């Protein structure tokens, strides 16, 4: 890792292999250990999940064949990966739970195309940029009833939100 002004420490993301390759839409897990990004695989934009330090690629079970992927977003430990996938002519929001192996379709309001996602690190909320009649609008959705929280170590499971007073 190299040094830079302002006390920054800088490094390229862990390498993908030989040669120059596009890598886009980085998303860190809340704890900073995992990095999701978009790369080209077989001519299709595909999400890649890696351990940030070692570069080890972590398996994703359900996303093959649903490219192009876009807008990956990770929870605190990277247990949950939310992203947009292609299903026929539609862009759909889905969430892979790496702990249980489930893929959860995130059913958004009809008639509006999701453009970008942001998953709260604890997995309790999802922010979605939706496009309707040419207008972009961010809306917030509750995932609390659908997912176990993905909390930082030491935080209580109930009664305290994310454990940080805003």
């Amino acid at each position, binding site marked *: 890792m190299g040094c830079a002004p302002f006390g920054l420490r800088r*490094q390229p993301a862990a390498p993908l292999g030989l040669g120059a390759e596009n890598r886009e839409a980085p*998303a860190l897990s*809340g704890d900073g250990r995992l990095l999701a990004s978009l790369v080209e695989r077989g001519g299709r934009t595909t999400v890649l999940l890696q351990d940030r330090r070692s570069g080890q690629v972590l398996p994703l079970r359900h996303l093959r064949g649903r490219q192009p992927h876009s807008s990956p977003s990770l929870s605190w430990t990277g247990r949950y990966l939310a992203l947009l996938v292609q299903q026929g002519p539609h862009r759909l929001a889905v969430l892979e739970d790496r702990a249980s192996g489930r893929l959860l*379709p995130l059913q958004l309001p009809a*008639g509006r195309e999701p453009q970008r996602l942001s998953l709260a690190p604890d997995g309790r*909320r999802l922010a979605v940029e939706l496009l309707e009649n040419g207008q972009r*609008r961010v*809306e917030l959705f509750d995932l609390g009833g*659908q997912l176990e929280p993905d909390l930082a170590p030491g935080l209580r499971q109930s009664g305290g939100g994310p454990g940080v007073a*805003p």
Partner: protein
Amino acid sequence: MSTAPVRRLAGASTLLGLGLLLGGCLGSALRPLPGINQRLGQLGSSQAPALSGGWLALIAGNQGRAQVQLLNLERGLPVPLPGLNRPDSQPVSVAVDQQGERLVVVRQREGRTELVLHRRSLMASQTLPIEPAGVPRGVSLSADGRLLAVEVSRGGIWQVDLLELP
């Protein structure tokens, strides 16, 4: 005749198909958070959401008048960001840490695209150098605000830089 019911039916069919393909694990419709969504609607056009802790950062307003906004989700209110938004700049993307203290913004100003770290308690922004030179676009912050992933275009190739922030 309105096409809305047809669109709704098509969307429902797509989700049903995806659910069946995924082994019957069809998710239920996401529950919108009406209070905060009403507030978001008052911002007009909005895009590029970033959730962390009890905070939602986004870019709101029309082209040419867009600004970074930071909403306290517990109170449902935007908080002031003195020293961040400038009349001569156009934000492109934003990320926030879980304390709502650090925001990282990519913005266009005076014909250049710059990467900026804003500390809310100091009401101060500093430009983060891109080295080697490149054009930043997307950003992601770890929850503690110490690790930044930034998407940078260099020579026609998109790369991901990781920066440890002081």
